[in-house]
């Protein structure tokens, strides 16, 4: 018996292509997973899935005493450990109303700026590599090596430094270190120019970054962007200027701003920050005061009951620590991190919508995230 004739099915139909970028993907900088909905090559929607690197740093902090937590902050943004060390220590010092020796504040500034250079080097390298300029990556890591050498000389570690203590620094700088930092600054100035030759006026680079991932200043603020991505949209917000910490109020430096808020502007802003960082380091090393590097801090730190929020300008953006002390314990009651990478990552779906697949990797590179900090 012949089958009942059915309504004719359309032979072809169109469907969105859902592809899974990451967590094992060369351009997602670790363990980021982005679920992309594509129409051909065009991105209709992007869904960011995080949590692959979650270690519960905030919860762990509730079971460590205050100086032990410095070690945990290393593991937030592992490309910029010193920046997290600094903000955490300052938050606790604020809680303790502790005065940090001037020399320690100067050295902390130097370390933070060296760290900014190292972090931006990783960024310029991986960003360029995602867009196809592999050579820049190796050049950038070559210079990062020099920063790591300086850190190794200072604190013995090359990645997770544990470089600061509540109240100052664990030790003074080794002899001659300041000279070597200045020498590094001289090298760095040359090398920044080298990256700029390879990228800044490169036609392909311009084509790939201009007008990609544009976000207006208003939207950037609404979404909670901070750091270079925010400044590239023309918003003047730099914690180093607005709420000076360490010794930033004593140095002269400019806050580079972008106008268009696109990937190219974010690139220019960060490149300019290289120059500003070496400028700050030079001033700090030349004006380095004598004196102790660690304030008088009790062995067991027991801050009075209260809470505080303290923010710094990390290379990635505004990193903040919110610490609650119950006044009876040597451990924080609550320790909450405001991670810049996490907040900046929120902008990703907004930035890639309507662009092509190739732009997704460019945008992931440009917001400069570190998954250790996103997932905590």
């Amino acid at each position, binding site marked *: 018996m012949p089958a009942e004739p059915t309504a004719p099915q359309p032979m072809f139909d169109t469907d969105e*292509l859902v*592809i899974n970028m990451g967590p094992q*993907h*060369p*351009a997602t900088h670790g363990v980021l997973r982005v679920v992309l909905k*594509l129409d051909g*090559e065009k991105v209709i929607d992007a869904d960011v899935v995080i949590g692959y690197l979650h270690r519960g740093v905030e919860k762990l902090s509730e079971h460590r005493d205050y100086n032990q937590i410095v070690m945990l902050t290393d593991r937030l943004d592992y490309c910029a450990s010193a920046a997290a060390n600094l903000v955490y220590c300052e938050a606790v010092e604020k809680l303790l109303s502790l005065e940090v020796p001037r020399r320690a504040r100067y050295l902390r500034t130097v370390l933070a700026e060296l760290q900014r250079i190292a972090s931006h080097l990783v960024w310029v390298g991986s960003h*360029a*590599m*995602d*867009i*196809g*300029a*592999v*050579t820049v990556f*190796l*050049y950038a890591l*070559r210079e990062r090596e020099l920063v790591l050498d300086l850190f190794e000389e200072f604190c013995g570690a090359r990645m997770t430094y544990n470089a600061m203590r509540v109240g100052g620094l664990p030790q003074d700088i080794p002899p001659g270190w300041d000279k070597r930092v200045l020498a590094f600054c001289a090298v760095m100035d040359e090398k920044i120019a080298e990256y700029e030759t*390879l*990228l800044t006026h*490169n036609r*392909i*680079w311009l*084509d*790939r970054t201009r007008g990609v991932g544009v976000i207006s200043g208003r939207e950037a603020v609404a979404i909670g962007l901070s750091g270079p991505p925010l400044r590239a949209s023309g918003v003047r917000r730099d914690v180093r200027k607005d709420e000076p910490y360490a010794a930033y109020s004593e140095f002269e430096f400019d806050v580079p701003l972008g106008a268009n808020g696109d990937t190219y502007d974010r690139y220019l802003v960060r490149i300019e920050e290289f120059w500003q960082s070496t400028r700050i380091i030079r001033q700090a090393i030349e004006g380095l005061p004598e004196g102790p590097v660690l304030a008088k801090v009790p062995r067991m730190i027991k801050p009075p009951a209260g809470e505080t929020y303290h923010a710094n300008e990390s290379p990635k953006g505004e990193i903040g620590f919110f610490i609650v002390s119950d006044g009876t314990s040597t451990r924080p009651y609550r320790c909450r991190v405001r991670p810049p990478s996490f907040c900046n990552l929120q902008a990703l779906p907004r930035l890639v919508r309507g662009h*092509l*697949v*190739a*732009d*997704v*990797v460019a945008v992931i590179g440009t917001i400069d995230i570190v998954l250790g900090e996103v997932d905590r």
Partner: protein
Amino acid sequence: MIDLIVIPLLQIVFVLTGVLIVVMYLVLLERKIQAWVQVRFGPMRVGPHGILQPVADVLKLFVKEDITPVKADKWIYTAAPIIVLVPALIAFAVIPFGSSVSLFGKKISLAIADVNVGLLYIVAVASLGVYGIILGGWSSNSKYPLLASLRASAQLVSYEVAVTLTFVSVILSAGTLSMVGIVNAQYNSGVWFLFVQPVAFVIYMIGGLAETNRSPFDLPEAESELVGGFHTEYSGMRFALFFLAEYTNMIIVSSVATTLFFGGWLPPFPNLKALAFLYYVPSWIWFTLKTFLILYLFLWIRATLPRYRYDQLMRVGWKVLIPLALANIVVTGVVKVLLGR
């Protein structure tokens, strides 16, 4: 009998072996040059300065497990690498590696076949390879290869137009389609066609980069975007065939550039009496030298430039290169008529 079968067969064996060995070492050369640009050493472990690295690579690829994805279309999946490689290899048939050599009293041409439509043959054969890429990406039944092979097909087809148009202007200058004839035409005119057709050369080189999927046009295998591109699912020898085809294509593009624009086997300024001593250098050495210089250009570009985006690549192809190539043909034709040649 000997002229008809034995000598061509020997030539084929000789050329194929030569090409495969050159490909192996081209990979090493690429890694070394990239490493030097990037202040690294490159392969150093296998043999002194890594000169045995290609052998190790080939061995590795031979013993690797050959995986066919369960959902792949098995026949097409197997055929695709072959479809990519074979056209690349047979294109060498018409490339004149040198003028001719005397061996055992026989005059042997260094082109396997001097076909009178040699250039057309190359265009025809070279355009077959794209089928392998499309089929390979499609039959893998996986998303990234599919996207990449779609990119590849669009890219190769559109750049083929520009490249073929530059051939037309060269043919206009030379008055022949035969590869040997084109070299002889450069001998007669006394200069390489590079100086007669500079625009065509630039377009050809850009198109050549795009057609061989080389940086900055390596979108079909953009690893930061599409993982491994159209050969993501391939492994072992099948992957090696794709790899081989890519480098063979690079050599083809360089050899054709040498033949069309750099006077093939001719020394620089072939007509100048003062430079006649250059003819003491065997013709095939000139050819190899020029081919490798162009190959070096490929590698150098790869080490320097970022990658184009898909839409930009298509824009460059259709809105810049093709109109330019067309204009070049018109100008060539007008000049030729005005000069009355």
